C-alpha cells in the first residue's frame, strides 16, 4: 500500500511539473511546446515503446522457449552469449547503428528498441524454464503427461514469474531508450529534451524529461502488479515463506 502511495505521489508531482512547464507558454524568446504537441509526443512515445515491446515479447518468449528444447539446445550458449553481450552495448550505439542501416526515423527507432528489449526476455524465458525442478518434470512425465502438457501445465506456469520479470525490465528500460530515439527523428519526448538542450532552455528539457520519467515509473508499477497477478499462488506462498525465514 505504501509503495503505491509513493508511486502515486511521484506521478502526480511529475505530471504537475509537466503541466506547469507547459503553462509557462514562453521563456525569454523561446516558446514552450504547446499542450497538443506534448500530447502528440506522448502518444508517439507510447507507440514506439508498445510496438517494439509487443514484438519483443512474442519473439523473445518463443526464442527463449525454443532454446530450452533439446533440438535447439546446442545454440543456447551462443544465444545467451549474444543476449548478455548485447545488453552491455549502450542504447545510443544501438540506435546509431539502426539509423545508419535503416535511415532516420520511426522504423529505425522501433527496430533498435526491439533488439534491445528482446534480450532480457530471451534470457529470462530461458532461465525460467530451465530452473523448473527436474523432479517435477519427471513426475509429470511419469504420470502420463504428454510433452505439450508438461510444457503448458508445468513448465510455463512455473517459469511465468521469471518471464514476466524480464518483460518488466525490458519495457521500463525501453521507455528511457525511446527518449534517445528522438535524436534520429522518431518523435516522442526525446524531441522536447533535444530541443531544450540545443537552445539551453531548462524548462523545455524538463517539459520532456518529467513525463518520460512519469511514464517509466507508471509502467513499472503496472507491470509489477501484473507480475504478482501472473505468479501462481503456490509460488507466492513459497516466496513469502522464504522471506519470513530470513
Amino acid at each position, binding site marked *: 500500500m505504501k509503495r503505491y502511495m509513493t508511486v502515486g505521489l511521484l506521478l502526480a508531482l511529475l505530471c504537475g511539473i509537466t503541466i506547469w512547464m507547459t503553462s509557462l507558454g514562453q521563456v525569454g524568446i523561446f516558446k514552450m511546446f504547446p499542450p497538443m504537441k506534448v500530447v502528440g509526443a506522448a502518444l508517439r512515445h507510447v507507440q514506439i515503446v508498445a510496438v517494439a515491446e509487443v514484438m519483443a515479447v512474442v519473439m523473445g518468449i518463443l526464442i527463449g522457449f525454443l532454446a530450452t528444447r533439446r533440438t535447439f539446445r546446442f545454440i543456447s550458449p551462443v544465444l545467451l552469449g549474444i543476449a548478455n553481450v548485447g545488453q552491455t552495448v549502450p542504447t545510443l550505439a544501438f540506435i546509431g547503428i539502426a539509423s545508419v542501416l535503416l535511415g532516420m526515423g520511426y522504423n529505425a527507432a522501433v527496430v533498435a528498441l526491439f533488439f534491445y528489449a528482446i534480450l532480457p526476455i530471451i534470457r529470462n524465458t530461458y532461465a525460467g524454464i530451465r530452473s523448473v525442478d527436474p523432479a*517435477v518434470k519427471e513426475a509429470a512425465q511419469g504420470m502420463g503427461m504428454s510433452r505439450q502438457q508438461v510444457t503448458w501445465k508445468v513448465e510455463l506456469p512455473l517459469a511465468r514469474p521469471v518471464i514476466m520479470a524480464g518483460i518488466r525490465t525490458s519495457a521500463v528500460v525501453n521507455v528511457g531508450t525511446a527518449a534517445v530515439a528522438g535524436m534520429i527523428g522518431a518523435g516522442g519526448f526525446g524531441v522536447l529534451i533535444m530541443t531544450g538542450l540545443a537552445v539551453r532552455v531548462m524548462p523545455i528539457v524538463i517539459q520532456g524529461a518529467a513525463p518520460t520519467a512519469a511514464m517509466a515509473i507508471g509502467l513499472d508499477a503496472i507491470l509489477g502488479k501484473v507480475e504478482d497477478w501472473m505468479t501462481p499462488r*503456490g509460488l507466492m506462498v513459497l516466496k513469502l515463506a522464504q522471506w519470513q525465514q530470513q
Partner: protein
Amino acid sequence: MIRLDHVGKTFSDGTEAVKDLSMEINEGEFCVLLGPSGCGKTTTMKMINRLISLTSGKICVDGVDIYNLDQNELRMGIGYAIQNIGLFPHLTVWQNIATVPMLKKWPKTKQHERAEELLELVGMEPDTFIDRYPSELSGGQQQRIGVARCLGADPPILLMDEPFGAIDPITRAKLQDEFLKIQAKIKKTIAFVTHDINEAIKMGDRIALMRAGELVQFSDPSTLLSSPKDEFVRDFVGADSVLKGLRLLRAKDVMQPPPLTVEVHENPMLVKARMEKDRIGWAMLTEDEGHFLGWVSCDDLQESKSIRDTATPPTVTGTPDTPLNEALSKMFDSAIGNLAILDNGERLVGVLSFEIIRDVLGQSVSEAKVEPCGEEQ
C-alpha cells in the same frame, strides 16, 4: 503382473546399466529392487513405465508388451512416486493428487472427492490440507501427498523410487508402517526401489538384489537373510543378518504363555512355596483376570507384605504385533529380562524371554520358513 524378459539397457555413452534381466512380479506382490547405487535398479524400474527405453528384451504388463501400448496411457495406469517427490508447487494439494484423474478428464467433483478419499487414506485431514500448497507442508506431509498422488486414479501397479528416502528416520519408519497397512488393504503390484536393506526386509514380499545391472538373488526376505547366494549378497545383507531376521517375526509368532500367573489376593507364602517347588524364578502378577501388574520374584515374597507391594511393576511391555527386533531391545530395558506381551485391553497374553529369542535365532539360521511381515496384518 509384470514380466521382464531378458531386458537390457545400454545407454548411448556405452554404459550397460542393465544386462539380460529376467524376472516376474506377481499380481499384488510388493517387490523390492535392492542394490548399491549404480546397480541399475532405478533404470529397471523406469523401463517399466518407459521413462527409459529398453535396448533389448521385452517387458509385459498383464501379458501385453508395453511397447504395444500408447506411452501416456501406459503411464496413467501405473502410479509413480519418486524420492524428490516432485509435487507441482503451483498447484494445491488436491490438484496435485488429482493429476492423473485430471489427465483422464474425470469430472471436477469426482477429482475432488478422490483427493479427499486419498488424503484420508494417507492419514491427513482433508479439510485442513486439501487447499494448501506443497510449500506449506512439512517434508513428511509432502511424501504422504506424493504417495496419495501415485494412487490418484487407482492404478493396479505402483512404481516407487525410494519414496521415503528424503525424510528423517522416525517419520520414515512411521510412513513405512502406514504404507504397509495401506498396501494390505489395496493390494497393488509394486516395484519399490531402495538401497536400504532394512527397508527392503521390512517392506518387501520379495527382494530382487541387483549388482552391476544383473539380478543376483530374487527371493523372499527370510531366504535372502538365511541363505545368501554368494559373497556379494552376504556382504550386502551384512554380518548381522541373523539379527535383521528378527524384524521378520512378531511377538505373537513366538511368545509363550506365562509359566506362572498369580492373582493379587493370593497368599504370598503359598505362592512362594509353589514357586520353590517348581523352581520358577519369577511369576507374573495379574488382577481382574489378566490385567498385568508386574513381576514377582520368589526371593522377594514375604509373609508380612502383600504380593502387590513386593512386585516389580513393568517398565516396558510389548504387543502381539511388536517385531522381535524391537522386543529384544525392550527386553534389555526390562528389569527382569523378560517382556510381557499385552493385548489392546492391557491384558496379559504371553511372555518373551531371552531363551525364546535364542531358540528362534537358532532356527532361522538353519531353516527359513517364516512369513515376511508385509503379508501379515
